[in-house]
């Protein structure tokens, strides 16, 4: 085989590898069907100066709210299919229903519905990066406020 022929063959082979790589990346981007939802229910109050060490990864975010004390009440994680529901029982007779609307490996859209005794408190749709979180807070609880950290990771 001539040198030119060999080079053409190598270029073709390499293009094939690159194409497969790009196809894999594209498929990984589009075909994420399962989302892991993790919530942490936190009591924020000014009744003490206690900071729950389990909340260390969230400390900078929680300190934005100017409460003196933060205590983790509940932590739960659920895997859910796209358009499926993950229901979390939240202290104070509340429940949180999280429904992934769209999921790629990069970004996710979540519909979040918070209710108390069948009475809706909040319904919101939030778009966030996979692995990211946001904070939902405000409902009163045990002399403080309930703060819920909601994170989602596409899998």
């Amino acid at each position: 085989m001539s040198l030119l022929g060999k080079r053409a063959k190598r270029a073709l082979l390499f293009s094939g590898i690159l194409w497969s790589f790009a196809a894999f990346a594209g498929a990984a981007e589009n075909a994420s069907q399962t989302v892991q939802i993790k919530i942490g229910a936190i009591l924020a109050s000014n009744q003490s100066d206690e900071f729950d060490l389990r909340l260390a990864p969230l400390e900078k975010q929680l300190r934005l709210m100017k409460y003196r004390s933060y205590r983790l009440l509940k932590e739960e994680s659920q895997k859910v299919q796209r358009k499926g529901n993950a229901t979390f029982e939240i202290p104070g007779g509340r429940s949180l229903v999280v429904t992934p609307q769209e999921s790629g490996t990069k970004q996710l859209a979540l519909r979040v519905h918070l209710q108390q005794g069948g009475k809706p408190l909040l319904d919101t749709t939030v778009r966030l990066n996979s692995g990211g979180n946001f904070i939902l807070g405000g409902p009163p609880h045990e002399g403080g406020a309930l703060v819920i950290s909601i994170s989602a990771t596409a899998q």
Partner: protein
Amino acid sequence: MMRCDDIREVLGAWLDGELRQADAEEVRAHLAGCPSCGEERRQLEGLQKALQDTFHAASTSIAFDSFWRGVERRINQKRFWYEDALGWVRDVWTPPQLAWSVPIAIILLLLGMFSVENFLPGLRTGIPRNNFAAVESIDAFGRNVAVLREDETKTTIIWLYQNQEGDDESTGEKSETSSSF
């Protein structure tokens, strides 16, 4: 029975001793009785002798001894392992062999562009680099709600305020929920 033309054609091979014994005997017998082929033989032998003389004269002026000594020395010389390794590295990094590094570099570049996070989500710990969440819609069912986006930690906070009429009368919870950010 070979004729003169045939004899002259194989004369060179006969002089070099390359013929079979039967053919060589036939050539010898023919040369003994053929003056013209005998003359051809003499001329060919003279040419061979002239060439050998020229070669021997030239070869004495070439210093073959030192050349062979050098070859022998290099054959017998002990090579250390790092010399072999250096030789291998030198071979690998010469331009023709360096071609393998081009596809590797492109693949690494593409991996960098897609980033590890795309392929292994959640690998990194802590808060992602861009943790901002975009609130696309929000309904607090008549209550006040605030959305805060904080730059330093890239955090989005949705804060639900208790309404003035006392929204949480069912649980009887009253508390300081008016957070100041």
